[in-house]
């Protein structure tokens, strides 16, 4: 009897952990999803922008201690949120001076050739950011240890790590906020129009390059916030982006490339799979489980589980 009880507790513990982790994965995927949705560019450096978000939060909170006055909870939260605008600006500038040359209205007609240039450029970003990170931050793993990283809230027999629970709530709020921005605000609608039909967008006076720049900045900024939130829950080094790139691609493909809500659910599902797999698989095989699910989805439902909002026709 007791055995069954502890099996159930383990199950619900893994389920809770999966949901909490998955929420933040969901936000990360939304960042990648908006870039793909608006620009049709697969950003291979997305994980590295997440890494920048982690270090931004770290330096704001512990490194330079600018935010210590906010206390043990608000400090790291503010650090994670501020990582967003910082990385937004970096993304904006990279698009303005580099990526914008190989994307946008001018290259829409160049189809294949345009895509090669984009792939090579975002791969280049990934290499430069990772190695720049090694030079600037060093290869030593660090972590943003705060009281909330260690404390848990208990619900019955289930423990919810505080940092992860807070990260989950904020991730959901940011994802909802972004969704409302895209569907309700005028700027958000022009981004969708530029994604839907770049030529017609130009005819109605939308600057497609500017839309792309905003989408790229937003996409990397959102993922950086997810990174900033994760920084309180685990240690990291400049190579960490690579681990999360797999999570992000799996989530975005699962959700149906181009759908923002889908990307969130995709990321959430990946988190669940990853944590639930620890019930039956050794801890080291977590990411293998993600891959297996990823392959199954590609095989049986290549359009993703949730369809596409930008390509429903």
């Amino acid at each position, binding site marked *: 009897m007791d055995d069954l009880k502890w099996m159930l507790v383990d199950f619900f513990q893994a389920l809770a952990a999966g949901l909490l982790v998955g929420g933040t994965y969901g936000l990360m995927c939304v960042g990648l999803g908006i870039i793909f949705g608006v620009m049709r560019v697969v950003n291979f450096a997305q994980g590295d922008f997440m890494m920048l978000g982690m270090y931004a939060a770290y330096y704001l909170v512990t490194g330079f201690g600018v935010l210590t006055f906010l206390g043990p909870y608000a400090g790291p939260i503010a650090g994670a949120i501020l990582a967003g605008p910082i990385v937004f600006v970096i993304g904006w500038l990279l698009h303005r001076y580099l990526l914008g040359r190989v994307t946008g*209205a001018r290259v829409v007609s160049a189809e294949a050739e345009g895509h090669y240039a984009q792939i090579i450029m975002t791969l280049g970003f990934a290499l430069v950011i990772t190695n720049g990170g090694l030079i600037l931050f060093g290869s030593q793993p660090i972590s943003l240890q705060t009281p909330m990283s260690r404390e848990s809230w208990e619900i019955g027999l289930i423990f919810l790590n505080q940092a992860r629970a807070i990260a989950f709530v904020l991730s959901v709020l940011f994802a909802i906020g972004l969704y409302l921005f895209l569907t309700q605000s005028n700027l958000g609608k022009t981004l969708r129009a530029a994604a839907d039909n770049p030529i017609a*967008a*130009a*005819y*109605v006076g*939308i600057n497609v390059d500017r839309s792309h720049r905003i989408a790229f900045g937003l996409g990397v900024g959102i993922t950086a916030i997810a990174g900033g939130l994760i920084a309180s829950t685990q240690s990291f080094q400049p190579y960490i982006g690579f681990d999360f790139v797999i999570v992000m691609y799996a989530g975005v493909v699962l959700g149906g490339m181009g759908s923002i809500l889908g990307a969130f659910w995709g990321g959430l599902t990946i988190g669940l799979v990853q944590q639930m797999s620890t019930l039956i698989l050794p801890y080291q095989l977590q990411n293998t489980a993600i891959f297996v699910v990823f392959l199954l989805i590609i095989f049986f439902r290549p359009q993703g589980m949730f369809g596409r*909002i930008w390509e*429903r*026709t």
Partner: protein
Amino acid sequence: MLKIRSLDVAYGGLKALSDVSLDVEEGQFVAVVGPNGAGKTTLFKTISGVVQPVSGEITYKGQNLLAVPADERAQLGIAHVPEGRQVFASMTVMENLEMGANTRKGRERWADLLPTILELFPVLSERRSQLAGTLSGGEQQMLAIGRGIASAPDLLMLDEPSMGLAPAIVDAIFERIQFVHRNHGLTILLVEQRVAEALESCDRGYVLETGRVVMEGAHDTLVSDQRVRRAYLGM
């Protein structure tokens, strides 16, 4: 209002327009007719700035239009209703119209233009929250025209609004276009393969063949011209 002088446009090495000159006066209805591949769409794309000319001039309200980036030309009061509808398929009918009103003037006049558009095309009113991609071809064409009108343009450019539509719907759409022209004093530049319908409603017409203007003139001159009657009007 719009003055085009010896415009040359080429794709790669292939010439699509050579030495095209064209005038549209304020308040006029001007039609450009010609067979497939004559360069009609190319002409429109060059006016909108999506295609760059090799040489020539385009002046709009006295301003050198070629110096203005594509996305700012809509702000000057030029609305381009593209060939093949090109609505924002994944957005609703209302959102499409809102995107049309993305210009400064369009936003100012949204409150009085929206009812006008919905009255002009009542079907859009019924389907306001439907995704544009799921509309029928005729409905999409009406939406594309509505989107153009929503920008509160001074010059409405229509590229083959009859494309792929049943005759009854084409008649309805032409009738609406004439209505807008007459009742709202909108200047119209229309490109068409349906020569009879297009020439019937225009003040002035141009015949484009393989990138050249082969004939031009006022409505009466063109419809009574023997060559036009034989080649295009089947008389």
